[in-house]
């Protein structure tokens, strides 16, 4: 490293980044803590000279809020369903991809395709696939114009059309659609990570196993999985973090009202709650919710790191 004669130069180069970080990163951290501790804080009212009491009122209010509990429940449910499902499917696809030669590159490209999409736009495509035009499902005189392509498909197996996302749809049907979409959206990144990991495993391990004629299942559980465990840990941690911040996939499918027509905000999430509170000028509430979200993400990440440390082999 060179001892620069002009030490101020380093600070000159860093100055644009530092100024912007102070305004848009450091100040928000301090201010969020401040707003969360000021009961009923409202940014516009403060500019008008209003004062707020110091206390944990915002947190109490958030936790007692029925809306917030719905958001928490939705977020947790989506996390718990999508993270294991997408990890297992991605692992399966990656292992299969790694075992073939012809078509490997083409298939790899196809599996990566969902990554370079706009999650709102493709959410709208999924909504179209599950959509029912006519909405009169379930009544005595079923008047379905188009049951939607997914309903047509399950109809091939003799399953009756399901009201997935339209007015009057069941909660579990909504969640099913969201899980399918989120998993579809999450696969590319995980496949990419897993395939990269598989390709970097030293071939000698497999040759040794071949000489000992080890069964394939045993090769997978004793060689592949342990050597892939750092990537799996990484994928699971990032998936949980992303899962707790789920928001735009729901907007893509259900629109900004976060729910089927007639039952709005039923599918709202933690991030949705924060933005709603922010938009309605309840920044104190929003800050408290954001801090709770941060604590949950932090705790889950720590648990993940602890579990993976015990089970990860480097």
């Amino acid at each position: 490293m060179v001892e620069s004669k002009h030490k101020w130069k380093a600070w000159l180069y860093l100055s644009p980044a530092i100024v912007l970080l102070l305004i848009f990163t450091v100040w928000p951290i301090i201010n969020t803590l401040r707003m969360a501790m000021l009961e009923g804080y409202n940014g516009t009212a403060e500019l008008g000279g209003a004062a707020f009491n110091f206390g944990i009122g915002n947190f109490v209010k958030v936790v007692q809020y029925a809306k917030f509990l719905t958001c928490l429940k939705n977020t947790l449910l989506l996390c718990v369903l999508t993270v294991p499902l997408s990890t297992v499917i991605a692992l399966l696809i990656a292992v299969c991809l790694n075992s073939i030669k012809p078509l490997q590159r083409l298939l790899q490209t196809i599996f990566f395709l969902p990554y370079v999409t706009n999650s709102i736009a493709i959410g709208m495509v999924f909504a179209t696939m599950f959509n029912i035009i006519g909405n009169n499902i379930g009544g005595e005189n079923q008047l379905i114009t188009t049951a939607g392509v997914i309903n047509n498909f399950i109809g091939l197996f003799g399953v009756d059309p399901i009201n997935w996302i339209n007015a009057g749809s069941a909660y579990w049907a909504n969640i099913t659609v969201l899980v399918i979409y989120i998993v579809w959206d999450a696969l590319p990144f995980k496949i990419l990570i897993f395939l990269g990991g598989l390709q970097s495993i030293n071939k000698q391990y497999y040759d040794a196993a071949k000489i000992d004629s080890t069964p394939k299942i045993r090769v997978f559980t004793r060689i592949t999985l342990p050597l892939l465990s750092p990537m799996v840990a990484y994928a699971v941690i990032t998936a949980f973090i992303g899962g707790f911040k789920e928001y735009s996939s729901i907007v893509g499918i259900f629109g900004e009202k976060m729910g089927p027509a007639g039952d709005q905000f039923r599918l709202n999430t933690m991030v949705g709650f924060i933005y709603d509170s922010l938009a309605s000028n309840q920044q104190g509430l929003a800050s408290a919710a954001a801090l709770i979200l941060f604590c949950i993400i932090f705790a889950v990440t720590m648990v993940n790191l602890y579990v993976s440390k015990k089970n990860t082999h480097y």
Partner: protein
Amino acid sequence: MTNNVSMAEKDIQKVSAQQRVLKILSQVLVYAFLLTAALTVLFPFYWMLISSVKSLAEYELAVPTFFPRKFQFFNYVEAFNTANLGRLFLNTLFVGVVSTVLSLIITVLSAFAFARLEFKGKNALFAALLATMMIPGELFTITNYLTVDAFGWMNTFTALIVPFLVSVFYIYLLKQNFMQIPNELYLAAKVDGTTDLKYLWKVMIPLALPTLISITILKMMGAWNSYIWPRLVANDPDMQLITNGLRNAFTDVNSGKTNIPVQMAAVAIVSFPLFLVFIFLRKYIMKGVSRSGIKG
């Protein structure tokens, strides 16, 4: 004796034939699984494309057609006009290009300072920067919303560009890349009397070009896909970005009914540039993504 040997040979042949059949069978299964999965992944794209060229009447048929009977390309023209896509497109392009260029300049300068210069508190500062990466973005958004409002930036492009110019992750990525460049090059340049900026421009930037391209692509994709922040600070139709204009433009406010084929045409228009970028710059995207774990 000879009889026994041939018996054993036959056994071996039988076993290896069995193994071959098993191997072929497992290969068939693997391909069947992968192809099914690939078709599932592709289907939404296919459905988007064929729906976008159907007439509304054909789209609403009780049994949907898997290939349009008649191609109605007019849907694309209608989509472009209904959602004012031209304007949204230009807005997004402007925000994307300006924020990418400024962000690259800031990132390169900071990464250079961290990788090549020596100053007090360098390591502490870098560690502090990395620590901020753990905090979810929503936590910053609340205050930034108020800050942008206080600065009088509501409904301006400034609000869409400035708060996100510094990415600690990109600084980290580029710093790692810069540090791989041998220090001797820097010393040699210093001996020759080259200035820092000239050295940066002539040596470091060309050597770190792949990382810079990855950052550029991810940043542009970020502008293309951003939704939440623009919705908060730029509701003016003249300032909207493409994703925000897309979601509601095709739903009739009164009836709540959506002209889906036209909507799908708009979705296809928005997706198309992303695919182009993907096809030509796949290598850089995958490289950047596998290290970042963030979408856009």
